[in-house]
């Protein structure tokens, strides 16, 4: 009887297993194999040896180091800033009564807007052309070349862009987390004489801590995988702009003019995986006694 039940269970799981196996597991294993096959030639399907040569090559590639640096700066700035700002906006949204729905819609708009369209808008805001200094320069009364200028001005635009594009989702999730906190806790705290700051720190924040934690983890992962935002702002030749990311580097290794370097692409992808894994592990460890699951 038990055997039969097991068979049934496997049968139920079969579609998912097949799908995941073909499209997830097999490619993953393949990436691992590619990463250790040195000097792999994609047309002849030959390689000269098995070892860590690809990793060595990638890690000594200046372009990869630049991409790594860019990605880390992007992550370290945008994740805290976007999460913090989203929390502030979500708190504001749950506090106001009139036009609440209208504001919620406005804040959610970027989420349903195409990345490239947003990129275009940012170009108009920041880009300097022969005809105009760009809207931001006009407003600030400055003359800075944001898109083709110095490294940090470009990074600033990239960070602004990333923060703006990831915030709607975070605001949405945080607003619903705030709404799900029982109002009686706030009433009880007010009657007990707690100040707003103390209510936020001692009650609201612990109550929504699982959501905040979720957003931080997914925020880190998402930011490490940044690529399309940079393309939207600086075009496909990110190396020339000095704004490449790790995922961009992987893409270049595969498809750019010098592409077809499967081994290097696989090695870079695995390095990215190791980084994300480590960061997520640290997050989990760090948050163990900070996050309150009710």
């Amino acid at each position, binding site marked *: 009887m038990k055997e039969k039940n097991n068979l049934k269970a496997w049968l139920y799981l079969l579609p998912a297993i097949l799908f995941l196996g073909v499209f997830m597991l097999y490619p993953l294993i393949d990436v691992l194999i590619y990463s250790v096959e040195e000097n792999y030639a994609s047309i002849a399907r030959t390689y000269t040896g098995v070892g860590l040569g690809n990793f060595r090559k990638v890690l000594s590639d200046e372009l990869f180091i630049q991409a790594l640096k860019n990605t880390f700066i992007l992550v370290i700035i945008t994740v805290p800033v976007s999460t913090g700002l989203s929390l502030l906006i979500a708190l504001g949204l749950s506090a106001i009564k009139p036009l609440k729905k209208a504001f919620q819609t406005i804040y959610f708009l970027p989420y349903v807007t195409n990345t490239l369209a947003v990129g275009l808008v940012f170009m108009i805001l920041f880009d300097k052309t022969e005809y105009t200094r760009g809207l931001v320069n006009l407003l600030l009364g400055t003359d800075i070349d944001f898109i083709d200028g110095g490294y940090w001005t470009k990074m600033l635009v990239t960070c602004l862009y990333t923060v703006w594009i990831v915030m709607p989702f975070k605001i949405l999730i945080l607003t619903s987390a705030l709404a799900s906190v*029982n109002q*009686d*806790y706030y*009433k*009880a*705290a*007010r*009657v*007990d*004489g*707690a*100040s707003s700051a*103390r209510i936020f720190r*001692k*009650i609201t924040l*612990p*109550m929504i801590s699982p959501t905040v934690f979720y957003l931080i983890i997914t925020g880190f992962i998402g930011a490490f995988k940044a690529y399309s935002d940079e393309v939207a702002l600086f075009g496909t030749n990110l190396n020339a702009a000095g704004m490449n990311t790790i995922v961009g580097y992987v893409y270049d290794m595969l498809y750019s003019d010098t592409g077809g370097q499967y081994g290097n692409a696989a090695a870079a992808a695995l390095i990215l995986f190791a980084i994300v894994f480590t960061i997520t592990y640290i997050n989990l460890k760090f948050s163990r006694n900070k996050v*309150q699951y*009710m």
Partner: protein
Amino acid sequence: MKVVLENLTKRFASRHVKGEVVVAVDHFSFEIPDGQLIGLLGPSGCGKSTTLNLISGLETPTEGRILFGDEDVTNVPPEGRGVGLVFQNYALYPHLTVEENIIFPLENLKGEKKMTKQAMHEKAMEVARLVQIDQLMERKPKEMSGGQQQRVAIARALVKIPRVLLLDEPLSNLDARLRLQTREELRRIQRETGVTTIFVTHDQEEAMSISDLIIVMKAGKVHQIGKPQDVYDEPVNLFVAQFLGTPQINVFEGAIRDGKVWIGNEAVLDVPGKENREIWVGIRPEGFIPDENGRFTCRMDRVEVMGRDVSVVCTNEQMTGKSIRAIVSSENTFRPDQKMVRFNLKPHKVFLFDRESEERV
């Protein structure tokens, strides 16, 4: 602390019909004596919770004043009023331990009242002992039973020595046996602390059993205030009479004619000097005396034996409910084939109300 409510009124904009105004509390005036336990009683939606919120300061009144002693607190925010509030669902902070929950109000104190960690701990232990949860100080709320959580909520409300303790349906989330036990507890804690306590309930038995005074409310209006027994014995109108007492009072269509109370074509009681009119006749279940020559005849339905008492279930053409319930001593015997049963009525258990106004005649 004496609590005075003067013409207290709260109006809300209706949530369902635009432009319509709901009067949750309608000109509520009463002086609650110091150190008493007051039961605020009424069916759901009668405005009793709103009254409690007005006293706590979570809502501001549309009209009227609230005084604690001689101090007008009408416009004082909740944190300045010094009230302790226990919620129906307790509202214990789930991420804090029992001790942290109890200490929470103390940590909010500012200025001169600020306490040291040690003083707070001692204070928390003191109230915890009072409500008998001092063994559970390290637990989280979800690791405790409903009754224990309830005690923590009371301890948290008491820890800063409130001027007034407010309890919103404090027992309704407990099971029947625990409810009985906790209500005695509540009475004991209130006696020991002597703090003026107002508790809201829809359960008349609960209110009657522990309150010094009960306030019966309906649709935002106060119908009667008094000692539980007095309100039960002398209800001012049909609503109060029906709301208090289990089983419910039996109500009949009747009339006063020539100094007699008539139900159908029987004159069941003499009421000399009362003028003729159409009335509702309310008879408490314990107001019936079985008597073969009784003046009030009912059709027998069944007899339910409850040990000490017997509950006679019968019907009458003039009754308003589904059946009549008469509770009589088990010394009375009834034959199984008996079709009719006759009663005499105890005059002080019979209440007469005007047919139109439903006020006591």
